[in-house]
């Protein structure tokens, strides 16, 4: 592969390069921070890589309106630092590292804040994209409420760069909370944790995160509060927990606990299986994690879990993925991080609905008729 790690210097140059690739039928992959390149299904190794590293301007930060416009290659951490100066944040906290905003949106990655603020699709107000025929198109806008035209930003969020390149994003920002506090309660029993998680999820307290973690013979449920009175809210949550059969303790300095939750969504050398479960089936997923010796992070209101399969051969991991799919059906189990050897053995996506696939392919053909943008990664 001809790697262009420095990438085009401007959006216009990226569009030119993409158009040329489209005309020549050269397959391309878009690259932000390069932190999630293995996500999606296995496609052929692309012939060309187009990095967004040159698209690194924070175009607008309208602090009074709590909105911003960013080029796709802006590293998420740099954007957050800029917003923080005005006491604001983009409410996306995936395990970031070098990730760019464009990459986070293209992969629809998210972190614990999603339970309160939604994921990339919910925070992106507008998007400028480039298609493989050189078309540059904008959808949405810069205001937080807008229903004019189709919402192509949602279509491109999570599309893994298979429909075209994201060039620029306008996003909604939120105030940074002045303080946070977390209540955490431990138990080695999936059933007890599940009951506590459900009680917290259904209580009328407004949280900034409600997660599970499980592995190594122990587990915990964590609920975070943010704002002017987080401690009082955490104490109220302690009473809900107590009624649900667990006693928790309140931590004010809670950043490390939540960083650990975020980091649990990734695996440097092993594999991550993301399970799209339901709140009520979280105990079942924890049981399966225990059975397979996997460490688990769960996002309770969404019913999502990330299972890390580590310290095993690709063959053992493949067997575990297949068993998880069988035991947890009809819940979808997708492979995110995983060694290429494992991806050769199991389909990273698992079974899909025929009608949805056909429609997905029709969308792909209309947006990328040349079929050059990461073919095979989604369809």
């Amino acid at each position, binding site marked *: 592969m001809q790697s262009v790690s420095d990438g085009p210097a401007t959006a216009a140059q990226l569009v030119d390069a993409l158009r040329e690739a489209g005309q020549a039928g050269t397959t391309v992959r878009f690259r932000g921070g390069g932190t999630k390149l293995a996500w999606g299904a296995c496609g052929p190794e692309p012939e060309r890589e187009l990095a967004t590293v040159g698209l690194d301007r924070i175009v607008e930060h309208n602090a009074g309106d709590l909105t911003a416009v960013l080029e796709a290659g802006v590293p998420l951490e740099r954007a957050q630092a800029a917003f923080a100066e005005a006491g604001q944040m983009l409410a996306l906290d995936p395990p970031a590292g070098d990730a760019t905003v464009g990459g986070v949106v293209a992969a629809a990655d998210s972190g614990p804040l999603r339970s309160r603020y939604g994921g990339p699709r919910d925070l992106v107000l507008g998007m400028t994209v480039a298609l493989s025929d050189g078309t540059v198109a904008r959808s949405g*806008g810069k205001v937080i*409420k807008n229903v004019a035209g189709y919402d192509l930003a949602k279509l491109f969020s999570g599309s893994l760069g298979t429909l075209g390149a994201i060039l620029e994003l306008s996003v909604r920002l939120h105030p940074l909370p002045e303080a946070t506090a977390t209540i955490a309660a431990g138990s080695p029993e999936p059933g007890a944790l599940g009951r506590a998680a459900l009680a917290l999820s259904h209580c009328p307290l407004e949280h900034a995160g409600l997660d599970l973690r499980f592995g190594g013979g122990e587990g915990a449920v964590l609920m975070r509060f943010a704002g*002017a009175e987080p401690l009082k809210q955490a104490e109220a949550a302690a009473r809900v927990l107590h009624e649900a059969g667990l006693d928790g303790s309140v931590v004010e300095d809670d950043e490390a606990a939540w960083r650990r939750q975020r980091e649990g969504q990734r695996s440097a050398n092993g594999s991550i299986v993301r399970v799209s479960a339901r709140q009520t089936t979280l105990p079942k997923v924890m049981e399966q994690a225990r059975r397979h010796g996997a460490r688990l992070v769960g996002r309770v209101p969404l019913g999502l879990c990330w299972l890390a399969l580590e310290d095993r051969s690709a063959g053992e991991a493949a067997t575990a993925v297949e068993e998880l799919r069988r035991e947890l059906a009809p819940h979808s189990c997708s492979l995110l991080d995983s060694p290429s050897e494992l991806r050769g053995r199991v389909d990273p996506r698992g079974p899909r609905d025929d009608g949805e696939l056909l429609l997905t392919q029709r969308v792909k053909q209309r*947006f990328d008729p040349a079929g050059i943008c990461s073919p*095979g990664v*989604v369809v």
Partner: protein
Amino acid sequence: MTSVAASRDLTGLAAELRGIVGDEHVVNHEHQLRTYASDGLLQYAVTPGLVVLPGSAEEVLRVVAACHTAGTPFVARGAGSGLSGGALPVEHGVLIALSRLRRILEVDLDNQRVLVEPGVTNIAVSQAVGPSHYYPPDPSSQIVCTIGGNVAENSGGAHCFKYGFTTNYVTGLELVLPDGSLVRLGGRESDLPGYDLIGAFVGSEGTLGVATKIWLRVIPRPESVRTLVAFFESTSEAGEVVSEIVSGGIVPGAIEMMDNLSIRAAEGATGAGYPQDAGAALVVELDGSEAECEVRFDEVLRICRGAGSTSVRVAEDDVERELIWKARKAAFAAMGRIAPNYYVQDGVIPRTKLPEVLRQIDELAREYELQVANVFHAGDGNLHPLVCYDGHRRGEPERAEELAGLIVKACVDAGGSITGEHGVGVDKKRYMPQMFGEADLATFQRLRCAFDPEGLANPGKVMPTPRLCGEVPGPYRQHPLEAAGLAERF
């Protein structure tokens, strides 16, 4: 591209549809058809060729398939309460009224999900999961408007500044595509592999197909709700307060503003106790955990008083809260007291541009010698200027329409949008080129063509000019894995 000219003779199709839904659920008498000629935007009326009222998702599927075979365009309609002409029928087309699909199919409170048919009203969802939970999007028409219509329009409401819109609450859809095929997207769960086709469908104004089942997310009712209305001498003073509240890190559940003209109209209609001489009323509602709400509410009170509020009324109970909201919610209907007709716009501006745009609207109203009442969702900058006119006065409707158009332009020029929640429909499609260029519109059309290559679903809406779909260009490229026999195309 299938080039089937829509037949004007619907006799054969009518017979087929009767066979699907039963004689009594196909309407083809002229006077009955006229009942469906308009939606909530009465300025437009088109009598449909046929109205069909299917009773199940299966019947919707067969009706759409029959329309597809006949090459006859169709329009889906919920309660017909939309304000952009989105459910305006197509002449010689079929109107599919979904009012019989009004079953709540499943309430899964443990997982905070509800499965409904499209004809279920918005309020019925909250009623089905109350009192512990509710469905946040709350358009003013929530007593009558349907979830199917909300999905088509991506409806918002007074509380969407904090809680978001319909699109943030739909987790699954069963769709009938315009070719009569059925697709299931999502469900109770999040993050299923593949494109976010649900996100693409919600807000597509009926142009991509018909939703026949909808999974919705519901949330716990907040522990505490505090509501106040503060009165100011001018909208610019009230606007300053909005900025100060929001930039101070407070995210109100709702923050709504009314100007003097709308206060007078609403007060006349409701007797809610709003002072008729107030220049502006600001309704602020905070909700959430009780401890947080109390502190924030005191901050809001302090900001209102510090900014020169002439008086502040705090709701002490639900009855007083309802009374405060009564005036706000009655504002549209009360406009009859000011003028026989009004033209409502739905522009959005960045919140910080509020004083500037309101000044422009004022100047335009004077120039056009018309009254404009302003009611708006101040938190998200969504304006609802009501251009008042008398339809019987020669030239006045045209002047009102022109003025309304200039207000939309002022919103777009300020960096905003032509529509925040009412949709483009037929009414605002002419403004689309102010917001989007040719390449943008052509890219929208790609999505349309993926779902509806023959352009049968709600044609003539959203896009400013009619467009056709060509065949998918480009050669089919065999996937290398496919060539190696390792994978199939799907």
